[in-house]
């Protein structure tokens, strides 16, 4: 259960609290997940007073503050439609009003539409202390290994084209399977899929002629014993072709 609550006014103060050994201290974004946990004693550092909720364009990058809410992503004209739609699918509207992008990435699983699209876009995260930048796609499968105490920003390329499609039982259901494909002007194509395990899978990253079938099969092969594997594999291939066309 939560045993301490702090609401620092500066990032430095937050980092100081987060640097404590005892009690275990963690950042609290919107609180939609942490507020309900009861398994271990935690101190929480509420980030709501920190200036980390901006979406800004910097050159060819979009910089999204860590405490930007999912609803702000949905509403932002700066974001690609696929990303806005993924944010809308991530949680219901009441939760989106408080849930943050960083919180969603920390707590989401392999069905997360938002993480899938961001992975396809090769998003990077900026951590403090130390201004450490790491690849979201590489970090998601290894979330326990954190390069810092606090996510400050998420960085995205803007000169790309991204598309996504998700298949659920109903239009706003948590996806059974989904694909996001991102194209760079250079011809580079990157695709991530959702529907397996604890994080989205990167299934394609390259340019020129790509053997999509074998790349997808290789990337997903770890999950061949899981429920609906054959179906998901077929649908992933179908959707990648559909999105690329």
């Amino acid at each position, binding site marked *: 259960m939560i045993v301490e609550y702090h609401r620092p006014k500066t990032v430095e103060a937050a980092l100081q609290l987060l640097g404590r050994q005892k009690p275990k201290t963690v950042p609290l974004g919107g609180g939609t997940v942490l507020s309900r946990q009861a398994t271990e004693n935690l101190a929480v550092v509420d980030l709501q007073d920190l200036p980390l909720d901006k979406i800004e364009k910097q050159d060819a990058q979009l910089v999204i503050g860590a405490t930007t809410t999912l609803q702000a992503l949905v509403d932002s004209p700066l974001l690609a439609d696929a990303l806005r739609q993924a944010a809308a699918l991530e*949680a*219901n509207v*009441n939760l989106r009003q408080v849930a943050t992008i960083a919180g969603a990435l920390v707590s989401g699983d392999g069905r997360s539409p938002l993480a899938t699209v961001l992975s396809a876009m090769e998003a990077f995260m900026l951590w403090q202390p130390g201004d450490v930048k790491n690849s979201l796609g590489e970090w998601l499968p290894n979330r326990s290994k954190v390069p810092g105490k606090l996510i400050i920003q998420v960085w995205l390329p803007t000169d790309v084209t991204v598309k996504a499609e998700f298949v659920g039982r109903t239009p706003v259901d948590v996806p059974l399977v989904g694909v996001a494909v991102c194209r760079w002007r250079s011809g580079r194509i990157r695709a991530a899929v959702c529907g397996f395990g604890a994080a989205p899978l990167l299934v394609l990253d390259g340019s020129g002629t790509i053997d999509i079938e074998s790349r997808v099969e290789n990337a997903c092969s770890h999950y061949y014993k899981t429920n609906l594997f054959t179906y998901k594999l077929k649908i992933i291939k179908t959707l990648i072709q559909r999105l690329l066309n």
Partner: protein
Amino acid sequence: MIISVRINGVTKEWEVSPAETLLMRLRKEGYFGAKFGGCSQGECGACAVLLGGVAINSCCMLAAQADGHEITTIEGIGEYPDHGWRKTEGLHVIQQAFVETGAIQCGYCTPAMVLAAKSLLAHNSAPTEEEVREALSGILCRCTGYLKPVQAILRAAAILRGEDVPPIHTEEAYLPFEPTPEAGIQPPAAPFEDTFPDRGVATQARVMPQMWVTSKTKTWKKVGQPEAKVDAVKLVQGKPAFTDDIEMRGTLIAQVLRSPHAHALIKNINVEKALALPGVATVLTYKDVPRVVYSTAGQSDPIPGPLDTFSLDKKVRFVGDRVAFIAAENEEIAKTAMELIEVEYEVLPAVLDAADAMAEGAQILHDEPEYVNFAESDPSKNLAAHIRIDIGDVEKGFAEADKIYEFDYEVPKVQQAHIEPHVVISYWDEDDRLVIRTSTQVPFHARRQLAPVLGLPIKRIRVIKPRIGGGFGGKQEVLVEDVAAHLTIATGKPVRYEYTREEEFIAARSRHPMRIRLKTGVKRDGTITANAMYCLSDTGAYGCHALTVTGNTGHKAMALYVGDGEYRKSPNIRFYADVVYTNHPPAGAFRGYGVPQGFWSVERQMERIARDLRMDPIQFRLKNALRAGELHPFSTAWSEGREPRPEIIHTVGLEECVHQGKAAIGWEQKYPDPQWRSVPGKPHLRRGIGVALVMQGTAIPYLDLGGASIKMNDDGSFNLLVGATDLGTGSDTVLAQLAAEVLGVRLEDILIYSSDTDFTPFDKGAYASSTTYISGTAVVRAAEKVAARIRQRAIRMLYGDKEEAPYTADEIILEEGKAVAPDGKSVTLAEIGHNALHHTNQEQIMAVDSYVSPVSPPPFAAQFAEVTVDIETGKVVVDKLVMAVDSGVIVNPLTASGQIEGGMTQALGYAVCEEMRYDEKGSPIERDLVDYHIFRANEMPELTTLFVETFEPSHPFGVKAVAEIPMDGVAPAVGNAILDACGAQVDANPATPPRVWEAIQAVRQK
């Protein structure tokens, strides 16, 4: 820590703990409009409040996070227009619109919806329907289907913009029509307006459903009118009307330790450490409570099923079964204590597939000597119920057929998912009587069934049913009351016990999953010669409702198609069923009560046959369907385990329903047109259209009793006391309308109260689509007795002694709050009431009556569905649902259409997404409303409800049931529409993308 918030315009400081959620704090402070939906991930939204003007879930936010913020709760929105001498600003426009449009059913999620609407309209004065639906999409509603809440918000927006809005009650909604099916006269078809729009829900300017009414309907003043629900004003204000909306000093919180094993014996259980924990009041195991066998099914006596359950047992039979009860000062201590209980299990082999339950050598679930059989239950074979019904000569019928169709179908276990969880508070009153305040559909059955379990006589138990936040059959069960009651008996203190959403999934009841084999014999001209169903039904670990649910699968679904010609006179129908025990959580009652399972298979089979015979699927169905004046084929064969008695069906509006439904969905334009099935520019999409015809029942004949009492007050108002249980359906309103019609008063002059076993007459409760019909007849009878007394007194007041009166009492008309003589003289009911209580020949004008029906007249319906299928992924989007219903006379078009819309929406989940699955150890996979998806406001198809009235002669106002029939046809109509779109035969519902995709592959491989 101290936090400061500005709540509803008032600054307050609260001392909160770091772990406390905002919802916990709000309810502690008396803001009961924020509700708890039991969820763990903020999926239901019943707890929503406005934080800084934005709707957020207060269960998913720490109270500390709200420090320094502005909060608006429903208590700050609007209130009753006057409180005696204190006038208020009244209800907010949004609240008023919710009341007027019938947007409130159980009302549990209503405060959250009103707040979400307020937030939307604060920054968008002219929202589109899509924007309204998006604003509501954070709040799950299991009752309304969202249509009327959307209409309410659009209406409120228009009013706030200063626009005129049309009245709710419009004469255009009522089309005159007297069904004459014998003569084959068709009613006028509704205009075809559909221009094949893309998916999207058109805003309905008209709130009223379209109705074709009987000639009598227009002669009534209250019956047939869209009156606002009598409980709407309190529910829209978020008043503390529900079970958990009270706080008693010293209340203990209960928790239940549940089994991690599907089947096991408790070899040892040690509660010493738990008992030693400070704050723990008691821990009860099977060693502590009396070993009394009973059934949890809330049904009339004798319960038509085996007695196979104990409050606590030394054997556990499913993952989630009860092991121990804990009562502690707070939830945290109770949960900690739960972890300190040491249990040693001897794990037994589990039966996890219904097909294995009766196999030789199968593990037996019920070997306890106390087990009490009902009918042909046989625990030595894991058989909770066994049904063998043969009508006519089925084998002869098959021999006479030109073609035999035999296919297998499967239906899943699904959850009622009422947003208010099961919740109970029990306490001893000052007379040492045990009071049980509980969210139940069956207060009187609960009292009767609990008495032996608790070792109390019935008279020492009082059950109070406050408002119920949805039930759908899930609360036709004595499921939580004994837990709190045992703990109150053990401790002497009030005890509160509320399920979490996870407990709803692992330890409540559900719809019976079934495997069905259907064999149909048909002649080349489409005449059905015989129809036989075998049903393997999984009741789970206990046999509550086992016989009756599965019996109704045959009794309703197999009764609709009797054949034609000579077969119509003597149909050949077989219904065999085995209802088996498995180590899954028990199934039970769920709206539709076995009938949706039956119609999934019957209506898929009818579609198959019609297509194979190249017949029009609707004509094929109507050719073989029951008609007015015919015998209900099952009425001589089965009656829920009691003596069957023949029953003629007097009213069948099916043909008219088909006609109007076809016109509304554009069947004639779409079904024959192959071009319509293609979606321009999207070669992977296919459209399809489907139909299903269905019937239900209305009450249980010769068994279920409803009672009502009415007393007149000295201002001409009346107290109507009923034991009938309004679980959000609007039955209180409908019963009050019936009384108001008979007594000639306004609806607000009928003060209805339901239900309390101490104060209200007996009623069987809310199930079997019976309240309007059974309890309604009791109300009419009691009202007629009261009306007779009023007329007699009116004669005396108008003309002195009876001998001098120029008229008899029968000639006095009660209307508009007056008793009016043929010569125009009148006296008000207020004067009559005052006179009776205070002045002349004083008496309390009052009456009690009750009713048991000898018949169960079926409602009928035609259900249509339109879908778009992605043939590459199997994804199905249901675009449109149209249901045309013959429910007899409609007492209240708003509440009745709300029932149809909400029922269709639940059935839509059954069609495409709802399913409870278990792993190889019998552990539930779905434990929340994320993995178990129910429809949200922003993903709904267009819903259309049409009522085609018939006048059922067995009811004083001609009514039949409306509540359950919308569950029956959506899934098969959607299945048939998928077939129409792409040829895929999906024989197991729900039609999830993988299932549809596999069926498409099967078609391609042929």
